[in-house]
């Protein structure tokens, strides 16, 4: 009965480095979402997975951002060549599509120095 978990909780990296953020959804939830929360942009959608496929990746801000989901469960969001403007809290959510409610994880706070 665990909720959505994310790791790491906090990540500090240097400009130009690559980072990977992980999301473990609630067991059995087929839909998974990534959002970004920053001071300047508020809460914005990044990408949506249904199973292992991503029918909506319209929110990814640049080609430095990518995400994958394997086995219909764990998802990884990768940011290549990080920039200072990538500093934000990255939130993951999952849902049972029939219900519609999205359950959120505690987020990963990314700081790019």
């Amino acid at each position: 009965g665990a909720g959505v978990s994310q790791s790491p909780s906090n990540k500090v990296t240097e400009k130009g480095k690559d980072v990977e953020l992980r999301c473990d959804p609630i067991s059995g939830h087929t839909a998974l979402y990534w959002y970004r929360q920053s001071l300047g942009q508020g809460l914005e959608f990044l990408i949506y997975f249904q199973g292992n496929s991503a029918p909506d990746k319209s929110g990814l801000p640049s080609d430095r951002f990518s995400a994958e989901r394997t086995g219909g469960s764990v998802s990884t969001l990768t940011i290549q060549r990080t920039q200072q403007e990538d500093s934000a809290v990255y939130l993951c959510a999952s849902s049972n599509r029939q219900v519609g409610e999205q359950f959120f994880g505690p987020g990963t706070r990314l700081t790019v120095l």
Partner: protein
Amino acid sequence: AQTVTQSQPEMSVQEAETVTLSCTYDTSESDYYLFWYKQPPSRQMILVIRQEAYKQQNATENRFSVNFQKAAKSFSLKISDSQLGDAAMYFCAYRSRQGAQKLVFGQGTRLTINP
């Protein structure tokens, strides 16, 4: 594209009093969901209440209720008997019932409870 607007960046209320947070949205769709989420300093987004657009009856969850005005595209949250634990950021969110599954959020309202 849908948009959600929360015009009150900050609100405060005395403990045990009632407060109303405002939200308006813009959409051309007729069937959708509306939500209020609470985000305490722990960052965990917690669903407070949801409303389905086809339901005329306003949703209620204990001390939390909404005033859903579909024609006016308004969706306000009323918190009765405010408690110290209600202090948080509150986000209004929209989600299509069909097609795109993403949540579209407002800018948030920071609620302070004064003891």
